[in-house]
């Protein structure tokens, strides 16, 4: 090599971005993410070690906490179970049949996500409560929908629905029609076609939607508290218990619940992102079948 290049004249550093402004924009992004996400979450993660593990372990001996977590997990799970068939049905109808008004209905599906949770909460509590449009007839049948875990399930069903529909829709839309037609020509009935061909292909997006809905459900607060009744050990959800603990200035109690909720939600998300990656390959497998 000539001395010219050794002195650096005309030689490049090994890494150079082709566009200007890299350090500026990376710096801004890191500052924004660091201050607003990393810093506060670090505070949460470090809290258990702040005053030694003693108070934290003490906080974990709390039957009310486990009851609240159980209520949250079970209700979120039941809500997802209800959402799965409904979400699949909605996505199927909208994508396959394109009935009159399907665009408007498609927009409506986003509403549970767009309406503020507190508004959802008071609306559902009134609607399903005693004397409400749905609550009154249900009461005559002996069904108590509000101020019970059933109310929590109703709220979480409402909140979770868009996640299922939005995960399934794109896969359903891109599903190769000729595969279905080929199976049809082989003499399979509609139901067989659905179970053998579509359901396996739709399983990954359904599961990933379920994961998102569940992660959202266990953390849900605003839409739940108005309808739940909030009786400890019975209809008190984990996020509400965090709020109660904070009102008692029991930060350790609040932190322990928060950490359990956070880790569960993150595990769901990791699972979902793994599923997302397998969605396309799953489709291809079906394609080749």
């Amino acid at each position: 090599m000539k001395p010219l290049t050794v002195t650096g004249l005309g030689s490049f550093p090994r890494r150079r971005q082709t566009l200007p402004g890299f350090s500026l924009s990376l710096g801004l992004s890191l500052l924004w993410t660091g201050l607003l996400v990393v810093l506060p979450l670090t505070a949460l993660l470090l809290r258990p070690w702040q005053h030694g593990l003693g108070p934290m372990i003490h906080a974990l001996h709390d039957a009310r906490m486990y009851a609240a977590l159980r209520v949250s997990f079970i209700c979120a799970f039941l809500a997802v179970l209800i959402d799965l068939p409904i979400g699949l049905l909605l996505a199927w109808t909208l994508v396959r049949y394109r009935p009159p008004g399907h665009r408007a209905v498609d927009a409506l599906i986003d509403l549970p996500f767009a309406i503020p949770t507190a508004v959802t909460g008071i609306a559902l509590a009134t609607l399903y409560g005693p004397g409400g449009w749905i609550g009154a007839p249900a009461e005559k049948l002996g069904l108590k929908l509000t101020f019970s875990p059933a109310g929590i399930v109703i709220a979480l069903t409402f909140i979770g629905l868009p996640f299922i529909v939005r995960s399934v829709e794109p896969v359903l839309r891109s599903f190769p029609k000729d595969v279905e037609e080929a199976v049809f020509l082989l003499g399979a009935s509609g139901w067989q076609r659905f179970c053998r061909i579509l359901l396996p292909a739709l399983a990954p997006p359904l599961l990933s939607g379920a994961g998102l809905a569940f992660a959202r459900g266990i953390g849900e607060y605003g839409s739940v508290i108005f309808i739940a009744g909030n009786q400890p050990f019975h209809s008190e959800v984990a996020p509400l218990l965090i709020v109660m603990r904070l009102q008692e200035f029991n930060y350790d109690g609040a932190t322990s619940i928060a950490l359990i909720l956070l880790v569960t939600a993150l595990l769901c998300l990791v699972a979902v992102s793994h599923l997302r990656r397998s969605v396309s390959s799953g489709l291809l497998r079906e394609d080749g079948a």
Partner: protein
Amino acid sequence: MSITLEAFTQYAPRSSRKLLDNIALTVEDRAFVALVGPSGAGKTTLLRAIAGLSSHSEGTLLIDGLPIHDRPVQDRGIGFVFQNYALFRHMTVARNIAFGLDVLPRARRPDRAAIQRRVTELLDLIQLPHLAKAYPDQLSGGQRQRVALARALATGPRLLLLDEPFGALDPLVRRDIRRWLRDLHDRMNLTTILVTHDHEEAMDVADTLVVMQEGRIVQAADASTLNAAPQTPFVMEFLGETLKFPGTVRSGQFVPDNTDIAPFPFEGPDGDATAFIRPHDVFLLPGAGQASVEKRPHFSNGLFRYQIVTAEAAFEMITPTDLSPQEMQNVRVDISRGKIFYPAAASEDPPKPA
């Protein structure tokens, strides 16, 4: 504007794979150079490197004797036209062309009227004066191409870099634009480097062809040198239809394995070798052998195609003469105009350019 690359190597992002390997290239002021080669040869990468758009590289790259990154972009005097033109979709044709002037620092920016004049001038130059207010979506491929060119020329560059400038155009438009571009190059005293995978196009428009293969320069020369003295079989094959005849070099003669092909004198070391020849350099020696010839139905540009059938193989030749039936029987084939390459040169590794 002259360009010098020495020991220039570029790596793929986050890997040690070399996209450009030890490139040495000099482009003289006012030269018209075409980078040619199959896709994946590194032509576009090299063009982008010359524009200063390389990311992981080492080695020397001098523009007019100065390292490229020592000069602010505005002072480099480089115009670049991307393969898909990269026109700004939300701007009119006029604003696209004016962009390079609009973003100049205030002290050096011409006033509005001057920019307007320059845009009008360029629109006339690309023969689209009526399209100033159109948006890129409303233009045809050839029009977009010319607008992209006008935008690159607006700031008065002395070096013009074009990535597959004719790629998306239909054949008739291609030829027109090619002529127009060459004319522009000569009139404006530009130095032009273009990338193309079409060697005929390159030979038609450029003075020098740089043949690339797997990130390296295999040969850089003008068209007639490349035709007369290709340095590797790859260059020979890339530049046109090629016939290959394996054989051996023995005591000053090349002896083809195929006995229907006549041996011919060749000075070189003894050993296995292959003769490469263009179909139109093949001649026939009637009555001297066992091969037969069949006429092919294709006739174009005054040339005839013949299928030569030997005991071992069949291949096609091209000749301007209409052969008589007698001339088509018991022939021997003369390939003495071919080029001989030894196996070492034919291997994957092309020799380093001188």
